[in-house]
């Protein structure tokens, strides 16, 4: 009889438990689809140097003009132009182009880099600058001409004051690196020392 009572009690407890349980919930699933749009802006990153320091090695040349001769030297002080005296016409041109008035071309490699995004994937890179580098408080100058930019490794004929360069995205590994070229002329240079001037490199998305 006791066992019967236990069973009845167990059943009653079970009923109470069931009565206190929350109502069974229904699970449903649904599916939706989202359209994703990502707007990538024009972005251009120009890497450049705030200071470009180029050291030019000193150079010397000597020219042998043969014999300088003078006869009939008097017994006192005198000046004379002996045979073979140097004149403007007889001076020899320097072997180095820069020293005989010709332009020389400097190619400063990898002084700028561009990367980013544009509608064409390209950017215009241009360079501007002064006509000469100056030495402070003097009239001695180094003339500048043919200031140009060029993609590093490209044909020299592609150099110009304004070029098109691939942007390649935002990563540095895909950036386009470039050179600055300039012709220097020392015809109006008389002093050694530091000469300076500012050039501006501009990159614009295209």
């Amino acid at each position: 009889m006791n066992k019967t009572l236990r069973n009845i009690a167990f059943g009653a407890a079970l009923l109470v438990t069931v009565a206190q349980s929350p109502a069974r919930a229904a699970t449903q699933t649904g599916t939706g689809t989202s359209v994703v749009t990502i707007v990538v802006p024009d972005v251009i990153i120009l890497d450049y140097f705030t200071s470009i320091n180029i050291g030019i090695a000193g150079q010397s040349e000597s020219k042998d003009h043969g014999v300088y001769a003078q006869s009939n030297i008097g017994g006192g002080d005198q000046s004379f132009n002996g045979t073979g005296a140097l004149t403007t016409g007889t001076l020899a041109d320097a072997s180095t182009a820069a020293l005989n008035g010709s332009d020389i071309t400097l190619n400063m490699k990898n002084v700028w880099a561009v990367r980013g995004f544009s509608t064409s994937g390209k950017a215009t890179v241009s360079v501007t600058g002064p006509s000469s580098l100056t030495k402070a408080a003097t009239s001695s100058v180094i003339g500048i001409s043919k200031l140009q930019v060029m993609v590093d490794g490209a044909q020299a004929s592609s150099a110009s004051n304004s070029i098109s360069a691939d942007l390649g995205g935002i990563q540095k590994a895909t950036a386009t690196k470039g050179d600055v070229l300039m012709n220097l002329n020392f015809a109006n240079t008389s002093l050694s020392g530091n000469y300076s001037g500012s050039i501006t490199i501009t990159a614009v998305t295209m």
Partner: protein
Amino acid sequence: MKTPPSQNCHIQPDHVNPLGLTAWITLAGIISFVTLALQFIPVQQASAATISGKSVSITLTAADFGLTSTQPHSSYDGSTTLSGGDISGTSIAMTEGTTSITRKDLLFFTYADTKSNRNVSATYSLTRPKLTVSGSTTSYVTISNVTQSKVTYSSSSKTYSGYANMTIDLSNTSRSGSYSTTGTTITINVTII
């Protein structure tokens, strides 16, 4: 009347007596009653789960890539002679741009329901997660990951809103413009309890 089969298996002839048989009959009856009782407890039916996928639009800015438009480097030092020529000076030590960008709490779906205490969760699956831009076959954006962030309920609109975090990758992107999900689908499976 339903009786669990395991109970019948445990009944042995030696143990059958009027008292024991009564006990089993009672228990079986109670279980049957309980089973019957469950059938009468009303089930809280969720309404039809109509999920509205929302258009997701991300507009990036230059700041997202961790770089400013000009990256100055201190000094390029090189040397040459009066003959001119190529100068290989200091190399540019460029800073890497960020190509993996995560936007948090983007609204991906809504689900209308008058009950505010549903347990709503979602999973997101991607197919062909490559977004393209008009005019280029080489420049594209990849969606690399979408994960649920939160689900909120608005009592005023009686609507659940599902938000997710989305990570995109621009390591193969070179062009600006609007990249869209041509051929790309983000499927949202939403479970409502």
